[in-house]
């Protein structure tokens, strides 16, 4: 059976058959593929694990309105089959056929945005995605978009100025005459579905949920993956690939969302940046945490399903999801079931998922009016950092101002994200006062026995966790917006 993917590399259609190719295997990263080509050396490898952004490329694909949507991604994390049906744009694709430079490239020259230049192609691609996708980006949005591109030389200020210059352009410079034909070409690529078996690995690429359930039902050792930001490290950095990979990135229904009366249903394959856009108004605390999740490049491919399924003790989405009372929708050949997230996560990187099941969606209830909800993250660096401690808190007050319901969820304080039962209990029936917050904070010492590691000491974690409750109080006390 052929195991074929088709995509556009710049303006050139490319088809790779993994069965016929001795050179490629589907678990290769997009970066490994690009660097093996003679004419794509502009895309650099800085770290090979999504920390530096030197390998940033842009993926273009049709959005819901049928227009091309451009996303900056770390090519070092993406498995090659994930570009099927998309256009891959690298720094070599930006200049015009006569060799003249794209406005983002020209702006980088004009503002001296490059010193040693090794990060520059990645920076240029991040700016290109911004230029295409967010022409009216604010200064803060520009900085946030660039947070995934480490530069050790320029101090970033010249790059910010370059961004402002190219984004100020409007009109014809922004349009590309080729976009119409690119769309047509991408739309003409049919979905690909195959199972590939190599010497020691299996890579399955279903195009429908039914097919995915059938594959994992048949082979429960498959590891389901959407964006591969975690699994890719296991394969390429730790040289410890799983027995098989179930690539869910081609299943449209997992990337869709829908709204019901009492909840939002978010497909497990929606990217975090996509989710952030959906929950901005309804679940602002979750949105805020998602903005500090990894880098823009990571958020463009990493998914809610992946974060939930990985069950990392410091997963950045988990406390906020739990505070909102999220539930996980699981599907298998046997049917489907829904489990509250706080019951789903059982231990360090351990969940209640059964063999043959995949996470299909996250159900996110709308918070009742008046609920006081905030989420916080403390890390050593503002962005692109793993939390030392993160927390999300929710209070529901009675009409007489007493606390009826409390959910205090912490990450980084125990082997897995969980609620602080003792501290919650201490709040019930009390008025939301500084004294109540302090009492709850004191109870945290019994709720958690954090460890010391490279990100912070146990004592620091205890102190910060307690202080976050005080911060929550001062952010939500009476007189503040709920």
């Amino acid at each position, binding site marked *: 059976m052929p195991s074929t993917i088709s995509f556009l590399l710049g303006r050139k259609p490319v088809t790779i058959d993994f069965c016929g190719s001795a050179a490629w295997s589907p678990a290769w990263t997009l970066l490994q593929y690009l660097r093996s080509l003679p004419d794509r050396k*502009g895309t650099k490898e800085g770290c090979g694990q999504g920390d530096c952004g030197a390998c940033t490329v842009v993926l273009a694909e049709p959005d819901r309105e049928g227009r091309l949507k451009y996303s900056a991604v770390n090519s070092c994390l993406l498995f090659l089959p994930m570009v099927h049906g998309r256009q891959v744009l690298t720094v070599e694709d930006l200049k015009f056929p006569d060799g003249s430079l794209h406005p983002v490239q020209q702006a980088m020259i004009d503002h001296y945005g490059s010193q040693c230049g090794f990060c520059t*192609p990645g920076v240029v691609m991040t700016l290109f995605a911004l230029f295409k996708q967010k022409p009216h980006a604010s200064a803060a949005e520009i900085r946030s978009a660039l*947070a995934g591109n480490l530069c050790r030389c320029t101090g970033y200020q010249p790059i910010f100025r370059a961004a402002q210059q190219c984004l100020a352009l409007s009109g014809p410079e922004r349009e590309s005459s080729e976009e119409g034909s690119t769309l047509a070409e991408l739309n003409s690529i049919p979905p690909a579905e195959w199972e590939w078996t190599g010497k020691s690995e299996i890579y399955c690429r279903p195009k429908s949920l039914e097919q995915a359930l059938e594959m994992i039902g048949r082979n429960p050792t498959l590891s389901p993956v959407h964006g591969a930001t975690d699994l890719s490290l296991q394969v390429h950095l730790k040289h410890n690939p799983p027995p098989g990979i179930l690539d869910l990135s081609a299943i449209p229904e997992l990337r869709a969302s829908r709204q019901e009366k009492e909840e939002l249903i978010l497909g497990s394959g929606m990217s975090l940046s996509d989710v952030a856009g959906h929950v901005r108004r309804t679940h602002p605390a979750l949105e805020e945490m998602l903005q500090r999740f990894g880098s823009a490049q990571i958020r463009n491919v990493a998914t809610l399903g992946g974060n939930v399924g990985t069950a990392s003790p410091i997963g950045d989405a988990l406390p906020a999801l739990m505070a909102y009372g999220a539930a996980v929708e699981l599907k298998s050949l046997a049917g489907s079931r829904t489990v509250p997230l706080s019951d789903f996560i059982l231990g360090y990187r351990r969940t209640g998922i059964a063999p043959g099941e995949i996470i299909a969606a996250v159900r996110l209830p709308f918070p009742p009016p008046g609920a006081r909800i905030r989420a916080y993250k403390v890390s050593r660096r503002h962005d692109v950092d793993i939390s030392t401690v993160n927390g999300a808190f929710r209070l529901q007050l009675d009409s007489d101002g007493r606390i009826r319901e409390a959910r205090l969820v912490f990450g980084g304080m125990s082997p897995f994200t969980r609620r602080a039962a003792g501290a919650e209990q201490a709040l019930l029936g009390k008025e939301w006062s500084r004294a109540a917050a302090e009492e709850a904070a004191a109870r945290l010492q019994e709720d958690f026995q954090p460890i010391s590691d490279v990100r912070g000491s146990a004592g620091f974690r205890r102190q910060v966790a307690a202080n976050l409750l005080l911060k929550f109080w001062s952010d939500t006390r009476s007189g503040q917006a709920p």
Partner: protein
Amino acid sequence: MSHYYEEMEESFRNSFEPAPGPVAEAKIRPWEKTQLVGKGVPRVDGYERVSGAAQYTADIVLPDMLYAAILRCPHAHAMVKSIDTSAAEKMPGVLAVLSGKSPGADLPWYGGKAAQSKLFDTHCRHEGEEVAAVAALTPYQAADALRAIRVEYETLPFVLDPAAMQPSAPKLYEGGNAVGEPRIVKRGDVAQGFAEADVVLEETFYTSVQMHATMEAHGSVAKWDGDKLTLWDSTQGVYDGVLFGAARALNMPFNKIRVICKYMGGGFGAKLEVGKYSIIAALLARKTGRPVKAMLPREDTFLCTGNRPEARMTLKAGVKKDGTLTALQLTNLSTPGAYASGTSVGYQVAELYKCPNVLVSESGYYSNAGRARPFRAPGFPSGNWCLEQMMDMLAVKLGMDPVELRLKNFTEVSQTRQVPYTSTGLKECLLQGAKAFGWQEARAAKKSDGPVRRGFGMAAGMWSGGNGSPPYTAEVRLFVDGGITIKTGAMDIGTGTKTVACMVAAEELGVPLESVRIENADTAVTPYGQSSGGSMTLPGLIPAVRKGAWLVKQQLLAWGAEALGVPAEDVELKGNAIGSRSAPDKKKPLEELLRANGVMDVIGIGNRDPNPPKKAINPFGAHFAEVEVNTRTGEVRVVRLLGANESGRVINQKTFHNQVFGGMTQCLGFALTEKRVLDRQTGKMVNANLHDYKVPTALDVPVQHQVVAVDPQDTECNLVGCKGLGEPAHIPTASAIANAIYDAVGVRPTHGPMEPKTILELLAKKKRG
């Protein structure tokens, strides 16, 4: 291997008193008015950098090229008892395996003449030491083969901290763990100085190990053609670093090795010497008869390519009521890791301010950790950290404005050498910087008493290098169509050397910038240039470029005067012809003029002249910071920075601004987030990646970042009047941030980096009283 940098450091720290230069040079006068120099000009190689066309060592691919991988010791301290490579040799795609027993691989390494180790040493003194290497058809096969090499280690007890000085500590060397004798700098009598003081303060300070974290990893590609070797190397010096080092290691003549490095993805001091990887690539290439590429994985760059060493400093300062310094006494204990490297931090204590009595005593010990290497202004951010926080403490104690205290102790005479500076812009940096920052208004404003506090701080600094010195050679060549090509072995490691060289040649010859091209850093083609280090490339190379261009001009003027029958002063170069200024109809095509003199090009060989005798040449700066400190979480946000720097003539405003932005940002990382973490149980580094090692991102840098370029109109230091900037722009930022934190919350973060944990602990301690 090479102690080049230490020797270089030594040479610019010692007074350099050269003989006067040839008479002809006296004619080169400072430019009165410039057309191009002093403007803001984009890079001449901007196109290559933004289009992906720039080719780095990592991008070199040659026909039949093999990939090397290096096996490293996983222990902090161990002896290799045996190595079995037989299984690895049989792995698919493997063409060669190298270990210390292989022919040509038994090479002395580290520590200069008294080598402390070998290319592959059986005594592994820190995690990551080289044990063996393979070459295979693909990088994946090479990595697989490493795992098939069986090594038997005898693990040894290790030591990471000053316990190494105890007699019972595990020994790295038979002679013990002390790194030589304590280094003492003494002036006057500190006891008397303290006796004369009205206020005496003493404080201990600590700065952590900072990693270079260059964006391009270290690496080399080696290719043999008969007895000739070509190395493409990610280096800061094709000559001093790689060529001379490789020639020594391989026992080869200089002209048989060609080293090329046109683009280089960041060095900051970590790429000043030939790497073991370069020699391993060369040996594997010779063994297999095929080109070999050895690029280090990211983790290896953290373990084995250098770092800024930690510093444990105690500084005692005496001052009179009016702010006059009477005595400064510094002790510093540090470790270069397992092998010798510079760890001194005391230069500014002895030099920055007028102070009659100084005593600096510095010592070091070996430890089982990766070796220190020069890192952007080696020792200076650490020395500045203690000196400039101490100045802030003194100012608080005296009730004096910190800027005022520094002005009070300003000097125009080098304190260690007792000769005047050719120029010192420190006073202007302090005054102009404070004005542009709004220092007085900011410090006078009332503080918030909420959980987030705002503070303002500043610090001054200087750099011992930045002077530049011979030798440097620049070849400036004029084509008959009026085009110019510069050739130099000097590096452009991103600092903008190529651009300013073109600007200076264009200025001197009066041609547009577009007419000038530069080719550099290829030892087979370009004349000698020093390694890029010490902020010396600009003041070292650029005067040589000007001189080369000037020589071309003199030749043209002489020939032109003869051909046109006018005085030489009346001749000018106009495109592809020369003409007379006074009689515009008198002109002659260049080609005709040159052919008549038997040539098709005019070449000027510009050698760098010596520096003026009995003068000190140093760059200065003053940095200002505004911070917000969250007293609940300990998080610090730097909301505003200003760098006022004086580095002689500003040749390119854009380059100048860029160096200051970048230098300060790297020091912001040193201040807040960057530190190597070694596991106490195993001695292994736990954050050897770009995630857990925290380089500042776009969200960590301040929203407002200002640069003030102070130009002292220095006509003495060299033919162009410029000094180096890369390092001085990096030095006082961390101290300014620390002082701003003190201003915000009243606790002094003497131990860096100032992580949320550190701030919270200090606040808790203050609360307890």
